[in-house]
């Protein structure tokens, strides 16, 4: 029973298949501390495996300098640069050096524009974070109320429409949705800007202000300039919708299924037999518990969201990590690619941990 709970929740950590579900049903709050510790420790192998996988894969194509500059430099010069960077040493030595550097927060230096990867990450990371926050907002605002509605009107026509809508959200590639939105709202109707995070004037103001966070909405608020703020928000609408709808479809389906499930539970029946009105039943009794699985699914959604962000950012020229990743890919700058991918892996692992902790705090059955 709990086995599937975990699996439904898309829980990370290698526990989903363990055959004895009984042990997990400990009474009270016992085991939370040890659960948190074990769950935290599991981040380490996860990140380690991903770092190793990415390193091995990327390095199996050859060293990054040859990949980036091969054919453009004479062979002797190339060999010299490879030697300088230490890429001609045994791969194991390089691997351990790479791991050591990662531990000290050194992700290497990009080859194409010679910047520390950490600087790239901090500069563009906030843009991706901003996009992700807006998208999650769109997903919640659309997914949860409509999911509830679909469950309430189960098998009636609004349910059918909403379910098809949810599948369409999933079936439409984010970049195609982005292009359609652009075509309709920016080109044909002319309501919203085509691409970018802000218009040139606003962007200059935002970048020259004291201590910018890189989170444009926050910065615009701090500037206190309503024009800049509205400009920034206008630029964010279409990318947020394009990326948010993907997750909204997932939320809609999940809320629908779970509300249908809780509506059939004994305690809802009990409340109904006590004369609790249908609306209240739905709002209080069936709806709230159905939201718990959403928390656990957000962990997986973050991974999906980051993947989608790469595509969305490319579509809208939103200068975040994903956009930058594609630029570096085209320049065959694999040090930068590796750095960004590893960084995203760390983010995903940490969010999954946080989500699992929240899930464990909310629902004692999740612990093991």
């Amino acid at each position, binding site marked *: *029973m709990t*086995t*599937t*709970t975990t699996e*439904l929740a898309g829980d990370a950590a*290698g526990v*989903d*298949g*363990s*055959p004895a579900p009984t042990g997990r049903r400990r009474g009270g709050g016992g085991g939370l501390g040890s659960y948190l510790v074990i769950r935290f420790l*599991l981040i380490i*192998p996860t990140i380690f*495996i991903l770092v190793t*996988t*990415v390193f091995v*894969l*990327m390095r199996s*194509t050859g060293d990054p300098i040859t990949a980036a500059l091969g054919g453009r430099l004479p062979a002797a010069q190339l060999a010299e640069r490879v030697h300088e960077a230490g890429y001609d040493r045994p791969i194991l030595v390089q691997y351990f050096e790479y791991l050591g550097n990662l531990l000290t927060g050194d992700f290497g230096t990009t080859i194409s524009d010679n910047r520390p990867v950490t600087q790239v990450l901090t500069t563009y990371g906030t843009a991706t974070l901003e996009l992700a926050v807006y998208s999650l907002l769109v997903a919640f605002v659309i997914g949860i109320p409509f999911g509830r509605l679909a469950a309430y009107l189960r*098998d009636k026509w609004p*349910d059918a429409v909403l379910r098809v809508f949810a599948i*369409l959200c*999933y*079936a439409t*590639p984010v*970049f*195609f949705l982005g*292009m*359609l939105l652009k*075509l309709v709202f920016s080109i*044909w109707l002319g309501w919203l800007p085509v*691409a970018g995070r802000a218009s040139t004037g606003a962007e200059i103001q935002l970048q020259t202000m004291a201590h910018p966070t890189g989170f444009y909405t926050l910065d615009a608020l701090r500037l206190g300039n309503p024009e800049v703020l509205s400009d920034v928000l206008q630029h964010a609408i279409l990318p947020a919708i394009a990326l948010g709808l993907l997750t909204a479809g997932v939320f809609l389906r999940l809320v629908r299924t779970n509300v249908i*499930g*809780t*509506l*059939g*539970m*004994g*305690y809802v*029946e009990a409340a*109904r037999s006590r004369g609790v009105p249908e609306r209240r039943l739905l709002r209080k009794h069936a709806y709230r*518990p159905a939201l*718990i*699985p959403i928390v656990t699914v957000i*962990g997986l959604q973050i*991974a*999906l969201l*980051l*993947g989608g962000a*790469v*595509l969305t950012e*490319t579509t809208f020229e939103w200068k975040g990590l994903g956009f930058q*990743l594609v630029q570096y*890919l*085209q320049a065959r700058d694999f040090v930068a*690619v590796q750095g960004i*991918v590893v960084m*995203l892996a760390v983010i*995903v692992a940490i969010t999954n941990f946080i989500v699992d902790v929240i899930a464990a705090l909310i*629902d004692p*059955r999740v612990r093991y």
Partner: protein
Amino acid sequence: MARHVEERPVEERPVEERSVEEVVETPETAPAPPRRLNGWRRLPVVRQLGQSVGLQRGMLVAGLVLSAGFLLTAIFAPLLAPYEYNQLRDPSGPFGAQQPPSSQHWLGTTVGGFDVLSRVIWGSRTALFVIVVAVLMSIVVGVLLGLVSGYFGGWLDRVLVVVADAIYAFPSLLLAIVVAIVISGGQSSLVGGVMAAAISITVIYVPQYFRVVRAETVRIKSEAFVESAKVIGAGHWRIMTRHVLRNATRTLPLILTLNASEAILTLAGLGFLGFGIEPTAAAEWGFDLNKALSDVTSGIWWTSVFPGVAIVLVVLGLTLVGESLNDLADPRLRTRRRAVDPRGDVADVAVVPGGALEGGPGGLAGIEDPAGGRWAEQ
């Protein structure tokens, strides 16, 4: 997991897995044994089609029609497409770039001067190749690893589970990009491109098959019939293939359909980022969308809308089939023939106390209880 439990006869299950009604039920209240279907009606999808009603049947049929349309288009692409996917001119001269739809080119031409309709049709062929190769490879690898890992356990199992979880939690597109860099390494031929895309997708989906098959194997391994086989003296290999594998792969058709649709999206995503197949080697929808990105800004819609709609329709079709199969396998979500308004009859619930027993606030216990939810009883 609940689904497979439900499908097995009660007697096969350990007592603690049975729900209350099943344990205490008297012959009179026992549900009639499922009718034995014969011939073609027992085929997977056909059977579910017979099971479905109303809206659910509509969704399944729509999905099947779309998927069949996709298959036929892919198979008969050479007959359907007016031009070759890499044809730039016909006897009357070059097509010209970005021509709006006309009687010559029903869907216009791309920025590279290709016929959009032809590329959309040929693209279905590429997509089909990639799905078939990717899904087959991930099934073979995932099922094999899951079976061995679940059956033998031990340190290998632990390592594989941690690795699979690590990969599973990672943004799949990024992983596909990394793998595509490694494999393609500048390859742009049809076979090279298709294999690069397919292997990238395989790497992503192996963990999914692995997880499902492993979990099932662990469960089945402890069943009485496996022990009996051991007592008789059957070898590991025989038990794994004869007894465990057949029972562990029940849900695969469902995952397969859903993965096929995800594979299309991943392929399109890769293509959109420039890891697709060169336009001269084959037609690929994602790649065409990438090329159409700048067209959108100048209001040229036909280069992006049609390949995009093709992706949406195919993914929609496959997803509808997968979703419907999923719902039909889950008694809680299955619409019954005599569907009565679920909010209404209290008496009907009182007769069936099963759902109430497991009810925790989490709402998940009810999901797991195959016969407990009231949906199953109606």
